[in-house]
């Protein structure tokens, strides 16, 4: 198992290194999005504006969003699309499966991996 883990880490590092240059080249335009009027939307009900966790407003939290590259200077409110109606698929995927109700399920400790990461990718 250790060998498999080592191979996996190797693949990750190689992939990251090979594509680092491409990623840096793409960062420019995304970092230039403009700060817009702020409207409070909190679809996951944690008390924190979704714009702080989902900068491009596609419903997928930044940390899980392949679209998102962190803008230099911190999260702030540089969200390009976050103030328009959010219809990213992520905002639907997260609500389709899981414990009943709003925040009344296991939440923080719902594990990861085989127990159903796919449905947790969105809010």
């Amino acid at each position, binding site marked *: 198992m250790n060998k498999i883990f080592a191979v996996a880490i190797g*693949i990750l590092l190689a992939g990251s290194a090979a594509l680092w240059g491409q990623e840096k080249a793409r960062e420019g335009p995304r970092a230039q999005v403009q700060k817009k009027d702020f409207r409070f939307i909190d679809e996951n009900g*944690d008390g924190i504006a979704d714009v702080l*966790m989902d900068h491009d407003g596609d419903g997928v939290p930044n940390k899980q969003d392949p679209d998102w590259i962190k803008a230099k200077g911190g999260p702030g409110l540089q969200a390009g699309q976050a103030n328009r109606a959010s219809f990213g698929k992520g905002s639907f995927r997260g609500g389709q499966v899981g414990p009943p109700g*709003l925040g*009344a399920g296991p939440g923080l400790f719902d594990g990861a*991996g085989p*127990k159903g990461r796919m449905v947790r990718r969105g809010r």
Partner: protein
Amino acid sequence: MIRTKMKIRTLVLLLLSTALAVRADSFSLAYDHHSTRNLFQTSDPVSDTVSSFGIFLDKDKGGLSLLADLGYALFHENPGLSFGTVSLGLDHLRAVGTRSAFYFAAGGSGRFFRSEWKALDSLSFELAAAFKTYLAPSSILKVQSRSVYASYRYALFDDLNQVLSLSLDKFFPSLTTLKTEASWRYKHFLHPFSGPVPDVPGIPVIPGGPNGRGGHGFVPIFDPDGGAAGIQSASLSALAAQGLGSRVGISLSGLRQWTLSGENPFSSITEFYFVKNPTFDEFSWEGWVINSLLTALLPYDVECRVGYTYSDKGFPGIEVLTAEGEPTGVPRNDTRSLFEARLDKTFPRLTVFLACSWTDNRSTDPLFTWSSPAVLAGIEWRSPFGRKE
């Protein structure tokens, strides 16, 4: 030899998925490590650690997304419980004007245990649909439907279930959020609960139960009149959240669930740590749950969440059993306190997290009175392949 074959299979899957990822819009790998002192969540604790691996792909084409998920959970102390999962799905989003959208999804998934719990091997197929509309710029109405057909190796668990929900969210400039949701759910067991108990090898039991009670966990109750069994429930829930500045939020939510008809067609039910169990799910209980949560966005992209959940659940049709497994006529009722904390640190392509919990479960059935800590740590890497512009 078996372990070597498993390693080779895992490696091949990993490499294959990596190759496929070149064509995917998003691709991620995850590794989580769990540690629990009570795997079977009974008064006779059994410790274990679990390593789980996951590979996730997402490919968009013409408004249609293909989602794929491969996973494997390795139980170190109880290797027979190790299982693999595979999921494949499609979803589509269709906007209606500027304020509304429909969402449709279809998918299938499989779960395959290594040896001991082969009876719980399952295939399931799911259809989901949702409609979301902004009633006002800060009000969201959402209607959702989910239908699932699940087929198990041990056919007594086969079921068809349906969940419908209606939710209304309202957000205020004061950083206040109010959410309400009403849900209806029905689970229909497809097997006619009649005739003799089938002699199916590999029926899972609760190992190590005290006083010889360990074997009763999955023995179904048969209705001599025949016919399928179903259980129907409804729930109402509400949530209030408040932002304290822009980086700290607190929320309080409550849920009440009623069983409208039917009951659990089993003599006993239980839940396990990390293992999905068809007898213990969102359909099996009635009662209430309250939850509080503190979320803080800390410097250096660290997210901290601390939560407490209290629940009081009854299980219709389930009675407290004697040490010999005979019903006592006393309904089973569980109350549970659950403390949780979680830290997530996000890098541009990497997330690492650490979570811990402590559960105190009190039950009218002494077998299910237990308390235990658990720890979970993990890492997820998201590839930069195919990033959408």
